[in-house]
Every structure is written in C-alpha cells, then in structure tokens.
C-alpha cells in the first residue's frame, strides 16, 4: 500500500510538472470556435522571429506554414515527385495487398467487429498505440523536439496510469498532450535524407527507401517485437492489425472508388502525407 502511494506521488509530481511546463489551460475541444487552441503554443515562441510567432500563435505544435501555399497558385503546381524504378514489383505487391485485404483481412475484421463491441476495439487500439510510445518518442528525440518528446512522455504516463494500462485515452482531451506523431522515418526526412524511391512491401504496404529504414527502426523500438517466442509476437501484431482494421472498414473501398488509377493515387497519397509529416 505504501508503495502505491509512493508511485502515485511520483506520478502526480511528474504530471504536475507537465502541466506546469505547458502552462496553457487544458482547454477541451471547443466546437464551432474559430479560436480553438489559441491558449497553447506560446511558451516556445519567444525564440522565434515575430512573423513566425504570429503565424504559430494559433496552433499547438504547428511548425508548418501552410500559408506559403496561398502566395502563388503556381506553387501548388509543383507536386511531390517520387521515382518508381520498381514499378512492376510495386504494382504486383499493390495487387497482392489488395487481395490480402479483400480475401483475408476484411472478412476476419468484419467477423471480429460483429463479436466485439466498438468500445472494446477502441480500447485495444489505444493500448497498442500507447505501448508504441518508444517509436514516437525516439522520433521526437532524433529531431531534437524537446517539447513534443515531453508531451509524448507525459501522455504515455497519463494514459498508462489514468487510462488503466493504456486502454483508455484520457489524454485525448488535452491538446498539449497530443503532439503530431513522429517516427524515425520522419526524423531521417528532417535530417535532409530524401525519399529515395517508392517501394510497396507485401503486407506492410506503401513505403519509400528512406521510410523502409524507418520501418526497420520502428521494429526495434516496438515492445511487441521483443515478445518471445517470435510466434506470439506475430500473433499480437496480427491481432493489432485486425483490431485496427475493424475500425476503418470501408476506408480502403472508398479510396478505390474515388481513385481513377488506384496505384498512382496511393503512391501520390503516401508521398504527400509523409512530406507533410516531415515538415511538421
């Protein structure tokens, strides 16, 4: 019992520390408000030039100035480009993953969805997200993003404790505990390493040469990888994929319906999304 209080005291001190650092009120998400988030994001702004500070004042953790896009219409013509020397392999793997989804993942996830209530599935998703904390934390550290790293660590503590092992996500309501998610692949991008070329992995899906190195790093940073024997580790990963897919059923179908050329659409979508994340 004494230990419990000790742990609680340490955690409380830690959390208070977090709260102090971020100083902004833990404002809940305010619907219909044009000013959401104005209270955050000011503590690191001292070191920034005035203009940047003004632009950043609106959002917590907003590093990108999307306003650049608005300057000249021509700027938007300059789309993200990616070389695709492995196009035949990639198309084959795209096809393989497509079938994997429709023939295996979708039926399994649909059955699972029918049995397990949504609340439980969201809990499992939260749990896996929470224990993958080292990936995001390292991603922050590799980019020297101290503030975001602290936020990640705080969220991990907060959700592990108050979210009962990470199944709950009480940190969701605190914008300053929800930094944009980082990973090693993004850090490599931040260091100036380019995408290399596009590659579609079986099962894992779209990636690039750089992000594949990131995926390898993710593997070593994910606690699930260290579960012995390896068979159990695979099973747990499989469970995560089925669980998370059960929450996004229909998304892939909608994507395919929207696309005129699904392969090209996915390639562009992947590269755009990663580019945005690297800039963030």
């Amino acid at each position, binding site marked *: 019992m004494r230990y419990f209080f000790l742990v609680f005291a340490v955690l409380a001190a830690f959390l208070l520390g977090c709260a102090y650092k971020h100083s902004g009120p833990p404002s809940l998400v305010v619907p219909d408000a044009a000013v959401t988030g104005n209270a955050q994001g000011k503590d690191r702004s001292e070191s920034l030039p005035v203009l940047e500070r003004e632009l950043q004042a609106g959002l917590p953790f907003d590093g990108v100035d999307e306003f650049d896009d*608005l300057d000249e219409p021509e700027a*938007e013509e300059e789309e*993200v480009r990616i070389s695709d020397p492995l196009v035949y392999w990639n198309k084959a793997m795209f096809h393989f993953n497509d079938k994997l989804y429709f023939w295996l993942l979708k039926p399994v996830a649909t059955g699972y969805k029918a049995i397990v209530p949504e609340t439980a599935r969201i809990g499992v998703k939260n749990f896996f997200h929470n224990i993958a904390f080292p990936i995001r934390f390292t991603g922050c550290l590799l980019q020297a993003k101290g503030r975001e790293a602290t936020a990640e660590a705080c969220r991990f503590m907060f959700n592990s404790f108050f979210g009962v092992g990470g199944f709950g996500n009480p940190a969701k309501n605190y914008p300053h505990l929800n930094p944009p998610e980082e990973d090693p692949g993004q850090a490599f991008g931040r260091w100036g390493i380019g995408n290399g070329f596009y590659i579609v992995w079986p099962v894992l899906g779209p990636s690039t040469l750089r992000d594949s190195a990131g995926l390898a790093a993710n593997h070593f940073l994910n606690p699930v990888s260290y579960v012995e024997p390896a068979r159990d580790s695979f099973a747990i990963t499989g469970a995560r994929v089925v669980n998370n897919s059960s929450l996004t059923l229909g998304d892939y179908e*909608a994507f395919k319906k*929207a696309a005129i050329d699904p392969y090209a659409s996915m390639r562009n979508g992947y590269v755009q999304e990663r580019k945005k994340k690297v800039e963030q």
Partner: protein
Amino acid sequence: MTKRGMVLQRLPIIFAFISFILVSPALGSTALEAVETNVSAVLDVLRDPALKDDSAKEAKEKKLWSIADTMFDYPGLSKRTLGKNWETLNSKQQEEFTDLFSTHLGNVYLDRILAYSNEKVVFDKEKTKEDRALVNTRVLGPSKEIPVDYRMVLKDSGWKVYDVVIEGVSLVENYRSQFKEILRDKGPEYLLETLREKAGDKGR
C-alpha cells in the same frame, strides 16, 4: 457646450459607426463561415429524418448537389487538376472534363461526408491572404480525428472551394498525379471515357 466638445462627446459613437462599416462586409462572409455554413447544411440534410428514407433518396441528392454547387469552384478546380495539361484539351473536351470531374469529385466528397454524418465537425480557423484562404476543420470520430482543410478562392459570389486536403493529402494534387500518367500514356479521349464510366456510377 462648445462645438469641439460636441464632437468629442460623439467621438465614440462615430468611431463605433465607422468600425461597424469597416467590419460589416466581413460578417457572414469569411471563408471559415462559408465552409461552416455549407458543411453544416450538408450535415443537416444527411441527418434530416424526413430524408433518411430510401424513397427520399432523389430529393436528398438534389439538395446535397445544390449545396455542393454553391460550395465549389468547379472550373478553377478542374483547370488546376489538369495543370499544364489543361491546354492540351480542346475547348469541348475541357468543358466535358469540368463537368465529369466535378460530378466525380462531388460524389467522392459527399461519400466521405456521408461516412462522417454521425460525427462532429469542428471548424478551427482560417488563414486569409488577399483572395485566397485556407480553412482548417476536423472531423471527430469515435476512434480518431481527421483533419480536413479547404483551400478557397474569393469569387464575386463569395468564397469557393478549389481543393480539399484530407489528412494532409490534397485531392487536386492526387488527381493531377493520376491524370498526368493517363494523359501521357493514353491521351485525353481515354481519360474522358474513364471519367464517364466513373461519374456515371452515381451521376446526377
């Protein structure tokens, strides 16, 4: 009271009046408000119990399309999607492309919004520069939140959407990358044929 005193006394009123004149054009016509009005209107239609029934499907789609028509800048959006390739189409092809692509994009957008109909949309903020604006919104789902940004341009008839950015992926840019390959490999007629099939799925 002296004349000067009179003016001074009325200064606050005059000031308030002037500022009202300066501000009033902005009332009800910012980019953010335009998005909010249109998206809320779409959600209202989707949530309207009288329109939930299958028999009301046609009326519902008609309503949704009339909102979409006021919301999007179809010609700008189509031209932007083809980029440099716009010039390689003849004027008849351009016209047909605009028509087909806006139908398809409208379908895609309404499909996505339809999937979000039970979720809350938060209208966060806007950034405006001259006749362009970027509006940030978020769709709050039970298991995740999806950022949806609108790129807008100010036309005579108000703010119009020319691109939708979902989770960091610009739709216009995404389609441009697809069309570029099709136009390079197969030509405009093939692109139009593909679009005719796609848009025909659920045309208006």
